[in-house]
């Protein structure tokens, strides 16, 4: 006679409970780990940029004649080495964070402030206004972001504010398109009908009903565009069209270090690493926010 041990119901319950807890934990980890890493990195960048004068060990423009093109060393004065003028690479990268973050934030705010109202107006009003706005956006969309920013920066000349403006304009059509498509779905909702029935005019509908309901998705996407803006800024500076030296920006540190990759690869390596980490941080936060808050955007 075979002895079959029948599972105790209590045992079973415990097993499933343990399993469920583990998979829930895994789910939570899966959900929160990337965003935590992203937020920590992004917050670090913000703190470093804001506190650059306090954190940077040396002045970013001070030239140390005794330490030209010196390699990185923890024991020395220059932890990440120096460049061809004997300037401290670490200090320059810390100050460069300011430029990247400033350009990243201001240009996205600009694109948001210009693009979203236009997109909502196009989506809600429809008709000729929509056609006019959308054809304009399409025309700008024909240029890749970097190319458009490059044209504008060339036209206006390289400076911090021009770079912000150029990247802002280059990103604007993206916000126009997205906010229009959100407005198109929102305007069909019952609450919009209700608001109109209560006598709300177009402007009130747009400002009080469409905009707040689109805000969630727009903010998520804006985070992702900060990453794009930072990368575009670095690319422009790398091409020598961004902020003119000696103001340090990650792109121009990298560009200047390019001539010395044979002897002194640390200049390009560390400045490029800074760019990558910053872009990665905002990509992680944006991605994770999108998955958490707005699954509708997943396909974008």
């Amino acid at each position, binding site marked *: 006679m075979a002895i079959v041990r029948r599972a105790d119901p209590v045992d079973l319950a415990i097993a499933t409970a343990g399993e469920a807890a583990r998979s829930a934990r895994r789910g939570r980890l899966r959900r929160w780990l990337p965003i935590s890493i992203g937020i920590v990195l992004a917050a670090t960048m913000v703190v470093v940029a804001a506190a650059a004068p306090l954190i940077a060990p040396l002045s970013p423009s001070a030239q140390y004649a005794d330490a030209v093109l010196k390699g990185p060393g923890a024991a020395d004065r220059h932890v990440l080495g120096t460049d061809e003028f004997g300037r401290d690479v670490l200090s320059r990268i810390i100050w460069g964070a300011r430029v990247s973050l400033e350009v990243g934030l201001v240009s996205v705010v600009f694109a948001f402030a210009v693009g979203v109202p236009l997109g909502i107006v196009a989506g809600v009003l429809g008709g000729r206004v929509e056609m006019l706005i959308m054809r304009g956006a399409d025309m700008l969309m024909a240029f890749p972001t970097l*190319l458009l920013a490059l044209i504008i920066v060339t*036209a206006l000349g390289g400076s911090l504010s021009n770079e912000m403006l150029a990247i802002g304009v280059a990103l604007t059509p993206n916000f126009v398109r997205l906010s229009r498509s959100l407005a198109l779905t929102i305007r069909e909702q019952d609450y919009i009908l209700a608001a109109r029935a209560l006598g709300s005019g177009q402007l009130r509908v747009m400002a009080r009903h469409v905009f707040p309901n689109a805000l969630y998705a727009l903010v998520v996407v804006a985070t992702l565009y900060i990453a794009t803006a930072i990368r575009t800024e670095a690319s422009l500076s*790398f*091409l020598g*069209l961004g902020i003119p030296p000696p103001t340090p920006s990650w792109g121009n540190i990298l560009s200047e270090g390019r001539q010395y*990759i044979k002897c002194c690869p640390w200049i390009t*390596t560390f400045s*490029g690493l800074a760019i990558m980490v910053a872009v990665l941080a905002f990509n992680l936060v944006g991605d994770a926010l999108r998955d958490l808050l707005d699954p509708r955007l997943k396909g974008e």
Partner: protein
Amino acid sequence: MLQYVLRRILIAVPMLIGAMSIVFFAMRVLPGDPCVAMMGDQATSEALADCTKNLGLNRPLAVQYADYLWRSVRFDFGNSFRQGYPVRDYIARMFPHTFVLVMASAIVAALVGIPIGIVSALKRRNPLIDYPLRIFALLGLSMPVFWLGILLLIVFSLRLNIFPLIGAGDLDGVLAMIGSGEVFLYPRDFLVAVGDVLHHLTLPALALGFTLAATVSRLSRSAMLEVISQDYIRTARAKGHVERVVVYKHALRNMLVPLLTIIGIFVAIALTGTVLTETVFTRPGLGKMLVDAIGARDYPLAQGAITVFTMIIIVVNLVVDMLYAVVDPRITYR
């Protein structure tokens, strides 16, 4: 269908004109007189006036604009300020280099990106596979192509000395040999030249291809996820097919259709990438030509390069839209 094609062309034409207008007017607001830039601050006012007249810059803006549009249609972008040769010739010389680079990096991106996208879609419940692939995709998206290029140069050109540091090989020679039929007379020389071109192409194509692979893998992941949830996949499974057959015979083919639409985005990203890649690898090409022209304030050359970039992007998008209509008859167009 025909109506759809015509409509798309009709939409593309004003877009092209609009984009070209943006280029024209942006170039005209440029601070600094091109003639001063060319002749230097010490030029006499007569010489400057002469130069302005020669370049046609003294004509009314509207006339210059109309002239620019009409010439652009015929690919006539005037003469380079610096060297004096027609811009069209430069573009014709540089185009093959950029074309080869875009194609090679597209191959790298497809070979790396599509399998990664498929695997990460199919194995999304397995963290040991999904996580590394997602990390790869994120790194690729975040890594600037110029930095990756420099890292590759440091390792493979400077340290290991396997690949050349600058240049593109004798692509012009290869094309000339094909054109003149010398390929058949001197097949060995031809192969050597092609090998040299490929040797120069490897690192740039890897750098650009890797950064593009991230985008491709993301898009193919979402395409695969979409296909895998379709009813016909469930039917295939219900019929008792093993998973491999379901994936290869049913899912993969259908996944490629949505992938087609990304070619448009892909070309746009790749062309932007060539501007940076060619600069890093000191490779001749449209992108490097554009950057050099802007640096030298050679407006006709810069204008020509940007116009050609824009034309390529708009035309590729147009073609892709049409291909999409041909490939997927389920889609109806308004």
